[in-house]
């Protein structure tokens, strides 16, 4: 009997998470991450640098005994680096048990965006929007919705980049 209950709960959880996004500002734009990928939001932590990694991977942090890498979202999306302050947050996301922390200036709120309000990104070859899953319309603002799986899968992307 346990199992169906559990599954039901899980389904319910998925249902409540569906279409909900955690939004954060980055430069002039506002981004959104599907809430189902977000494990937690923490303040900035002491970061241990790891050599030979790209600049946007700032290093690794100790999250209660779990060691996870942190990626600076600003540098990743080619924006000028901003010194970390007490508003700086790390959004811990977990995709298929691969965890990573995204360093962002701050987080805004969790909003629901109905599916009909999400449009796909213009698919023109020159536009480099590999990390964006779609664009959500909220009132008269737009939110760029990040594709977490692609962010976490560097290699594949590089291959795509090479191919292009």
């Amino acid at each position, binding site marked *: 009997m346990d199992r169906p209950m559990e599954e039901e709960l899980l389904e319910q959880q998925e249902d409540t998470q569906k279409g909900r996004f955690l939004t954060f500002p980055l430069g002039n734009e506002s981004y959104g991450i599907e809430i189902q990928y977000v494990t937690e939001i923490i303040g900035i932590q*002491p970061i*241990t*640098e*790891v*050599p*030979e*990694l*790209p600049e946007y*991977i700032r290093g*690794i*942090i*100790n999250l209660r*005994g779990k*060691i*996870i*890498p942190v990626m600076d979202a600003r540098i990743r999306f080619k924006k000028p680096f901003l010194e970390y302050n007490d508003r700086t947050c790390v959004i811990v996301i977990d995709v298929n*048990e*691969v*965890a*990573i922390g995204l360093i962002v200036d701050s987080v805004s709120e969790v909003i629901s965006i109905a599916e009909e309000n999400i449009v796909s990104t213009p698919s023109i070859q020159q536009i480099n929007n590999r990390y964006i899953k779609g664009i959500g319309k909220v009132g008269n603002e737009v939110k760029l919705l990040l594709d977490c799986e692609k962010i*976490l*899968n*560097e*290699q594949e992307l590089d291959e795509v980049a090479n191919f292009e």
Partner: protein
Amino acid sequence: MAPGNIDESLLDLFIFETSQNIEQLEQIILDYEKESSFTADAINEIFRIMHTIKGSAAMMMFENISSVAHKVEDMFYFIREHSADDIDYGDVADLVLESLDFIRCEMAKINTGTSADGDGAAIAAKIAASLQQKKDKYQNEQQSVTAATADNVVNEEPITKKLHNYAANDENIPVVNKKTYKANIYFDEECQMESLRAFDIINKICQFAEVVEYQPGDIMDNDNSASIIRENGFEVVFKTSGSYTNIDEFFSKLLFIRKYQLKEITEASLPQTEADVTPKIHIDDKTEQKPKAAAMSTAAPADNHTAPVATMINVNVVKLDKLMDLVGEMVISEAMVVENPDLKGLEIENFSKAARQLHKITCELQDTVMSIRMVPLADVFQKMHRVVRDMCKKLGKDVKLEIIGEETEADKNIITHLSDPLMHLVRNCIDHGIESEEERLKNNKPKAGKVTLEARNAGNDVLVIVRDDGMGLDKKKILAKAKKNGLLKKDSSEMSDSEIFNLIFIPGFSTNDNITEFSGRGVGMDVVTSNIEEVGGSVSVESTEGVGTAITIKIPLTLAIIDGMNVQVGDSLYTIPTISIKESFFPKLKDLITDPDGNEMIMVRGQCYAIVRLHQCFNVKSEITDFTQGIFIMVEQYEKTVCIFADQLLGQQQVVVKTLPRYIKNNFKVNGLSGCTLLGNGGISLILDAGWFTGMK
């Protein structure tokens, strides 16, 4: 029920049990092959194991496995029943081993999630042919004995072929006052597997009664019996002292029964065969008592054997890993509490006492968890018997395998990595090391070659030595080969013996096509090295021409916790495994050398070593770039040495090794780091990969 629908845990259990059974069986076969005869116990044991495999495979719907197991079982049934002395044991062993390989291969498929689709028909046919041959032979020799005897012999095993009459074993039932009953049973139309159910009912009846006869008689043998039972019902005649109501109650409780008729029958109404049947049962009883008594006497020591097994439980390694992680975290948390900066300067006697107690318990806990993960090397070593046997047969050499110190323990994860390299080395020994018989006799060596597997503890390491008494390595040939492949870095006259021998471990040494031409070793030795290095071990070789070769594998006891030296460079902390540190020292200016290319070197006691500046290597900002202000740590790995330059030493501590996060491992290649660890203050230190540093220059 398709294999895909089978409960995962059931499948796990099946795989676990069957692989254990296979290993056990293989061991028995190899043991008895040496003595070239099977004892009754061994045959029973083989029979039992094969029966178990067959049963569970059939239950899990792996038809191919169960059919092969069935054939082997048939063969041993024959051997057991006829206890023929003139059986070709080599042939039997070959067949059994071949079928074991087949089953193992299928198991591997199941394990990786693919469907077990191998065709066992070929092996099954081979066994059947061999069995038929044996049967023919047997019948020719003993024509006086009719096949009927075989039909009447009753086995302890509840399942035998040609079982017609089943004798009750229960001696407690008084023979007097027994009444004979006849039951006609009809199964539910949907129940399936009628013959199996009928057989089950007979078994149950046997517990309280004496089964005289049942129809159809060949339920387990004849595939059509199920349909006969479906149409005509299943008829069983049995004798018991129990009352009619008791028996009626028994039948009413059986499952999947549509209807049944229970009749008490008088002697006269019994079928005519009854007269024949009764004496037969007496014979059965006698024939059965004998092996039973024998089995009983041997069962006693066997019981002693199995007693400790009952106290063991099988635990998933994943759970142990988790436990290990937790203990590791606890060790760190303990340090975080005890060395909390808030406590600094406070004199708190009671706290210190309590902290010491906590420390003692965590240490003990850590040791215990480590010991749980330790398994003896015996399993891996035992596997080599098979390798030696197969190789000997193939190459026509006579080689004995000696095993020393198989009770030595090492971490489970490490042992799994040891199996392949060891097999490789043993194969190499027999293939290239041990000479042919004539050659051995010519060199005054015993005819049979000897391969020794030895394991022993040495500090924090386990040494596994593979030694043979073969021809040894040929230095000239190794050098010539290395030269040809462009692997020589210095003049051959300057090289020590061990340097020359270790050339065989360099990747690319054996990629030449003419492997067979090369009479020494080196076939895929680099595979061995890379496998061992993966678990932080090392391989070295010693050899004396004409006397033999010894290859020593050094592996750490465990990977999870190591002794490390923490060093600081700028703001970053690094941990160097203590095991690879030779010494640390402050340099003198006059010992420092810079060559025209800018490579920095240092002279230590007349030897020149390359210098690695950690801050440069890892691109860390550090104020200390002047050699005289920092410290040198001499690191040795794989017989190469470098001096690492760091700001300062922070001290030695036990660290729990954690791998770098998956994201980093998946996407980037990080050189020079083998993992990371958490420090007492919650910070992270990166563990240096000594092998990379010594290999880089």
